[in-house]
């Protein structure tokens, strides 16, 4: 099996530099974690900082560094886009971690011409998203990873399929890269087995005697034996929609109305294909360019925008009241992704039906249809836009008059 490892080194840093190019020439530290004890998520290679180092310690070592709070929702979204594009090259992709994916490329030479051309396509996929990637190709998952971390941007390393060649390639590399328990790695260093070559020179029984199952696995890996199969992801059908406010909103009423409008629209698409939603990801983009993410997995798939809205707003209200609220500034845009679309479940209707709500919905639908028809004959208006509007208080206290109220669409579901 021929596997390519696509690794984007310092993905958070690359995202930060893409957003603020002036950071390119600076030493950058990106942190995350609790307010009380923030830790380093990523940093410029010149800083020689490890992930998880306390921010205070990192700043004391590099007082001149630009310190940035991590925007993990953006890093995840951009990585997701890369993985989506890798799926266009091969249908067997494992999303191992943010910034690291494995792609099965055997058999693709027939399609793309040669293995080199397939690898070039993988490289293009990340370049298209503005990332520099490292690519390693090998007959197994682990050697492919090792090849990737020794590769240079735009210079992929391809290992031959022979086990001896793989063993020779891995020999000078430190044992710390092995995907094993930290205790096992420490024990190897205690035995002066610092490189993979040192390990490969031992007999499998000796390693197994000292390290148990980890010993056997380590011996196999350093000898180029990695039968691990890729845990491939499936391309799922998703519905994504975005709502951009005309200006940043800070009121709960405006946010609630915005979320409701967005969910109504997204769930209408779900109802059209007669499905129900299992998972909802909501992302809010704030005016300071930070993002806030909320994921909800429904106990039972639903096609109700009202239920989704009440779930989101209950959470938002709780979050806003907490001291360490992630919503720190007005919100400019919200987007929702509905995933795990499955068959809709039947629901027993209540004994007391909401007659008035039903009547109102019917009236809205009829009015909307009538007005849309008239408007369409007159001026070819877009059918998807509802002609029925309502005035919503957005920031009634604002000193800027046009920020106080807005006209929003009323949609019937």
């Amino acid at each position: 099996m021929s596997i390519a490892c696509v690794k984007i080194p310092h993905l958070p840093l690359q995202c930060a530099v893409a957003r603020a190019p002036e950071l390119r020439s600076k030493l950058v530290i990106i942190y995350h974690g609790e307010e009380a004890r923030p830790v380093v998520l990523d940093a410029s290679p010149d800083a020689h900082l490890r992930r998880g180092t306390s921010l205070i310690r990192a700043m004391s070592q590099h007082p001149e560094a630009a310190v940035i709070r991590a925007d993990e929702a953006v890093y995840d979204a951009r990585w997701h886009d890369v993985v989506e594009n890798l799926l266009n090259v091969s249908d067997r992709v494992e999303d191992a971690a943010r910034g690291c994916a494995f792609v099965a490329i055997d058999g693709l030479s027939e399609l793309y011409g040669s293995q080199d051309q397939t690898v070039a396509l993988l490289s293009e996929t990340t370049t298209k998203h503005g990332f520099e990637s490292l690519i390693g190709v090998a007959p197994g998952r682990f050697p492919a990873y090792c090849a990737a971390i020794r590769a240079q941007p735009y210079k992929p390393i391809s290992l031959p399929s022979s086990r001896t060649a793989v063993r020779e390639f891995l020999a000078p590399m430190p044992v710390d890269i092995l995907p094993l328990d930290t205790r096992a790695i420490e024990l190897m260093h205690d035995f002066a087995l610092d490189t993979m070559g040192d390990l490969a020179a031992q007999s499998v029984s000796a390693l197994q005697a000292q390290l148990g199952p980890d010993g056997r696995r380590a011996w196999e890996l350093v000898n180029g034996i990695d039968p691990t199969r890729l845990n491939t992801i499936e391309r799922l059908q998703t519905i994504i929609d975005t709502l951009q406010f005309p200006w940043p909103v800070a009121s709960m009423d405006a946010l609630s109305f915005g979320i409701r409008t967005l969910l109504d629209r997204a769930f209408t698409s779900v109802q059209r294909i007669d499905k129900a939603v299992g998972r909802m990801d909501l992302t809010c983009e704030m005016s300071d360019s930070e993002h806030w993410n909320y994921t909800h997995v429904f106990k039972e798939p639903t096609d109700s925008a009202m239920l989704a809205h009440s779930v989101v707003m209950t959470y938002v209200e709780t979050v806003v009241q907490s001291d360490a609220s992630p919503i720190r500034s007005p919100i400019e845009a919200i987007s929702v992704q509905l995933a795990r679309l499955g068959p809709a479940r039947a629901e027993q209707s209540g004994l007391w039906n909401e007659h008035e709500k039903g009547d109102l919905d019917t009236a809205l639908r009829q009015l909307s249809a009538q007005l849309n028809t008239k408007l369409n004959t007159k001026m070819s208006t877009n059918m998807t836009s509802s002609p029925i509007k309502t005035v919503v208080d957005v920031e009634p206290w604002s000193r800027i008059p046009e920020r106080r109220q807005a006209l929003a669409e009323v949609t019937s579901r």
Partner: protein
Amino acid sequence: MVSNPRKTPSIGGSYQPLNLPMAVQVVSTSDGQPASVTETRKGRAVSSRVEHVIDLWELDDEWWRATSVRRRYFRLLMDTGRVLTVFKDLSSGEWFRQEY
């Protein structure tokens, strides 16, 4: 698969601000106060003279954003007996009519 519309925000008509400023032509006096206002109504320019400045106030907001809001508002009594609120955008120097 639904293509990712994140890059092309689709809201546009769904959320429409109300009471947006409308451009007007203002002739001002040497001290910067409006002397006459010309509005466009149904494609026709209609001018009226300022009888009296009832009130004036300044608005300086969102200075933390790339484009701050800096306006000087005037509530005017026109010669037609109408009360009109106009403002001068202090960044661009343009005049607008807007209810406050």
